[in-house]
């Protein structure tokens, strides 16, 4: 398919990338391209300049910050997450979920940064990263800032990464005994999510985050509070989640009605919490 004409640059450093993004109207970062190229084919996006991040090796590393957070570069692919010993040790749910994204070819190219910056409400990583209380490092021309997951996702296809800025790293706390869960319904195995939920159970309590039901991931705070008493038996979790769907106003589309999504959100939340509880250590 013939794309609209576009200019291309491949910066060698993060500084260069940011100055290109800031210096050219209609410039857009190109990570793995597994979403962007398709929306360009559909003419749903028409960037004038593509700033290819391929050579930014700093963004391809997985490691730990000085304060012990697991830090994943924005250009780390899903395949890299799946094979990472750091992820396996510190927060294995990231690899477990990444392994269910699309197919081998897409996982070889698709990136963590792309997944979250596209901010499609059906994407896998946004609800998970909100549940894990992730921190996002955003680089601008003048400075660098860190925002929490609650502040990162602003709307459909909209994040805290502004014009002329670049997401460089995503950091999550290591599990430290917390249990994580992820559950939902997809269109076909490893397909698009119709609804999903991510949960984490730790000493600090329970976090439950719903995907696909609103423009951004939704914290199920009322459910979290009801679970704070500590009884995470199946009966207790089911009872606590009852009525959760009624608090939501999810969209209807070809894959499911809003009513069906309300039901799925409730079921997914229960399953994610039970999975997280069963994995909690200590």
């Amino acid at each position: 398919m013939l794309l609209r004409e576009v200019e291309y640059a491949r910066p060698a450093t993060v500084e260069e990338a940011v100055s290109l993004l800031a210096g050219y109207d209609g410039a857009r970062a190109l990570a793995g391209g597994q979403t962007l190229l398709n929306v360009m084919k559909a003419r749903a996006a028409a960037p004038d300049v593509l700033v290819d991040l391929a050579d930014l090796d700093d963004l391809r590393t997985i490691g730990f910050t000085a304060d012990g957070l697991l830090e994943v570069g924005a250009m780390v692919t899903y395949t890299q997450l799946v094979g990472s010993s750091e992820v396996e040790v510190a927060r294995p749910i990231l690899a477990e979920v990444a392994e269910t994204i699309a197919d081998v070819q897409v996982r070889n190219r698709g990136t963590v940064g792309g997944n979250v910056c596209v901010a499609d409400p059906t994407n896998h990583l946004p609800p998970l990263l909100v549940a894990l209380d992730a921190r996002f490092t955003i680089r601008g021309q003048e400075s660098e800032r860190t925002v929490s997951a609650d502040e990162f996702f602003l709307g459909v296809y909209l994040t805290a990464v502004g014009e002329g800025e670049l997401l460089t790293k995503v950091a999550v706390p290591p599990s430290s005994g917390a249990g994580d869960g992820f559950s939902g319904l997809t269109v076909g195995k490893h397909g698009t999510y119709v609804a999903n939920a991510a949960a984490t159970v730790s000493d600090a309590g329970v976090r439950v985050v719903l995907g696909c039901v609103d423009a951004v991931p939704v914290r199920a705070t009322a459910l979290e509070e009801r679970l704070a008493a500590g009884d995470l038996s199946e009966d207790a979790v089911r009872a606590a989640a009852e009525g959760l769907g009624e608090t939501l106003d999810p969209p209807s589309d070809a894959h499911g009605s809003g009513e069906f999504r309300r039901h799925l959100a409730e079921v997914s939340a229960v399953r994610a919490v039970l999975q997280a509880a069963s994995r909690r250590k200590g």
Partner: protein
Amino acid sequence: MAAPATSRVIAVELNGEQVELEVPARRLLVHFLRDDLGLTGTHIGCDTGNCGACTVHLNGEPVKSCMLLAVQADGARVTTVEGLAPDGELTPLQTSFNEHHALQCGYCTPGMLMSASALLERNPRPSEEDVRLALQGNICRCTGYVNIVEAVLATGGSR
């Protein structure tokens, strides 16, 4: 710092040979392979990244060449289905496809071969589950999956 441009001279190690050519930035890798270089073994099935008929190896890993710009492959090693058997003698995987009748119309075959050969490279004796997961991104619209899976398993010596 190189300014953005609507074209770029790219250098690719293609099927073991060094290729250097100027390409428009908007050209997809699959069109570079088929139209600029005449390597029509790589098929275009859906053009939307779903079918996997355009699968090639980029630095040894299977990727969909309709979801990659040719300029993104600058500096990379690319292998197409033509590169599997450069001297014309079929690989054990290709022979197995023949023996197991692992193709009906044949349109998906190049993509299937590229995904399966990448699997066998990293996992020489895959289980049936491994094979099915590795071929998840490749659609056979004749729905001839059973023989395709059999052919890959046989190559790995599991059947």
